[in-house]
């Protein structure tokens, strides 16, 4: 089936109109040395049947592991209805449309999504989403610096996800923004409030992760309060599932966080090669003109019926060009569609149960793992659904042995946090049964014994 609509005649006619003999002549300014005559590493085409078979074989290679890796992407149960509905034709090509108001269904869905994010975070305005949690955090940093005006330094705790910090660095450093790292308290795994309160330097904003990368719950009230006392903004970086149980950022400290961001993956998006996921971003009303991305508003049409429209578009690049709030953002329509359906199916009570169950499973896992010889918790502070365990041997070696037994035991922290020694980040969500936890503990005991 031809996917290119032009016939040979069409092409000839177009070439004649611009006075070019062959299509190749359009590319004649590219030096011959840079052109590759054949793509030797690209295989010949395969039939659909052959591709299906090839992919099935590759999928088998993935294996069926029992996974205890979290570290920013979490395995949760996704009700079958979520993707059954999200992949309906009306939604499947969802994207914030260019003729936006002609697509009332898409706009309504985004409006519902934004309303849910506002309810979840306790803040006033949500955009229609960004690429992922990391780029949402970078946008929040840019937003805070624009709002603050007089300072371009942001305090970035080392308890923020290392990949998020790397992403923020990539996006912000060339814009003259300084990221000042804050260390953590080695006993609790928390960011010390004094480091913010007594910071020797002025700062425009503080990033407050909750839970932090270690799974540990930060003292968000005091951190937020300290940032505000220093005339800075507080940027919450949250796991949306945790908000089923934890205090929403809008209520942190005395005035609440100013901006909240997070990765939306836990809300109905499957783990798949690292994405696509989506980034959530919500802020106080007073900051809305600094917020990047599309915002859908509710309105009424000429007959007084409810309708939806894109609003505050003068912030955006099709109007503000280089002075737009962002020139690299988009929304993740399909992932947001799934998340909206996920949240609608679960409701507040359902999300709370997922959060509580995940927390209980992680506690159960820690209890079991601690019984293995030489295994202990690294940090004393309470955690959500993830925690750091110290092993008696190098995690890399232990993880390899565990994998041979069908268990993905967690994330080795020795690259990102070498000072923690043999540290392993483990996570258990509601998807793990008591039997799964027992299986992991038994496998770990066996691996450590075999290695000893």
């Amino acid at each position: 089936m031809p996917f290119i609509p032009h016939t040979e005649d069409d092409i000839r006619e177009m070439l004649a109109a611009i006075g070019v003999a062959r299509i190749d002549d359009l590319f004649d300014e590219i030096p011959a040395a840079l052109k590759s005559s054949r793509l030797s590493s690209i295989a010949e085409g395969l039939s659909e049947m052959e591709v299906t078979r090839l992919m099935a074989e590759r999928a088998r290679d993935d294996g069926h592991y029992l996974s205890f890796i979290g570290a920013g992407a979490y395995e949760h149960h996704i009700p079958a209805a979520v993707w059954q509905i999200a992949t309906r034709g009306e939604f499947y090509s969802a994207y914030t449309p260019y003729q936006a108001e002609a697509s009332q269904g898409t706009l309504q869905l985004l409006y519902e999504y934004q309303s849910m994010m506002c309810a979840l975070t306790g803040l006033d305005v949500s955009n229609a989403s960004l690429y992922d949690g990391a780029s949402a955090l970078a946008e929040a940093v840019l937003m805070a610096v624009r709002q603050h005006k007089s300072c371009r330094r942001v305090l970035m705790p080392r308890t923020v996800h290392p990949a998020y910090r790397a992403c923020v660095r990539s996006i912000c450093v060339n814009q003259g923004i300084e990221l000042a790292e804050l260390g953590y308290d080695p006993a609790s795994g928390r960011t010390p409030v004094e480091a913010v309160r007594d910071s020797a330097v002025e700062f425009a904003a503080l990033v407050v992760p909750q839970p932090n990368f270690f799974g540990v719950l930060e003292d968000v009230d005091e951190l937020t309060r300290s940032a505000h006392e220093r005339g800075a903004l507080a940027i919450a970086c949250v796991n949306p599932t945790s908000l089923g149980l934890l205090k929403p950022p809008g209520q942190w400290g005395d005035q609440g966080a100013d901006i909240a961001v997070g990765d939306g993956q836990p809300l109905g998006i499957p783990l798949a090669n690292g994405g696509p996921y989506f980034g959530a971003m919500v802020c106080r009303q007073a900051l809305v003109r600094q917020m990047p991305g599309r915002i859908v508003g509710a309105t009424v049409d000429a007959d007084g019926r409810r309708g939806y429209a894109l609003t505050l578009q003068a912030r955006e690049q099709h109007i503000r060009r280089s002075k737009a709030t962002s020139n690299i953002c988009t929304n993740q329509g399909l992932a947001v569609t799934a998340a909206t359906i996920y949240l609608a199916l679960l409701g507040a009570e359902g999300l709370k149960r997922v959060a509580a169950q995940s927390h209980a499973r992680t506690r159960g896992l820690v209890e079991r793992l601690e019984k293995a010889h030489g295994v202990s918790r690294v940090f004393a502070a309470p955690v959500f659904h993830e925690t750091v365990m110290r092993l008696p041997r190098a995690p890399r070696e232990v993880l390899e042995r565990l994998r041979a037994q069908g268990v993905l035991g967690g994330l080795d922290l020795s690259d990102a946090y070498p000072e923690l020694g043999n540290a392993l980040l483990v996570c258990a969500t509601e998807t793990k049964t008591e039997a799964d936890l027992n299986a992991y503990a038994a496998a770990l005991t066996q691996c450590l014994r075999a290695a000893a």
Partner: protein
Amino acid sequence: MSIPADLKYTDTHEWVRIEKDGSLTIGITHHAQDLLGDLVYVENPKLGRTVRKGEECGVVESVKAASDIYAPVSGEVVGVNEALDEAPQQINESAYQAWMFRLKPSQPGEIEALLDAAAYQKLVEAEAH
């Protein structure tokens, strides 16, 4: 709408009124608000900020566009019209009454270079063609 003869103008459509104390009151012209349409937001410079002639120091935003405001001359911001925060439509209603901010000029010579009403009239007519 006639262009007030007692004001000065810029080619970026700000109007400037020279006050008795030597300070300058600044707004956007009737022609500018007409091009922008219904204004929904005005961002003024912070009080006390020093600006250079031609520097961006504010934004006016309408339902269909957003436009920067440029300092007509160098100086210090000595007043801002906070009423516009809640009621930006005042600029649509009467552009020459709804001032945005006041400057205390640091280079009084720069005032000479501003356009008079006749020159601004010509500029607007030229843009219309």
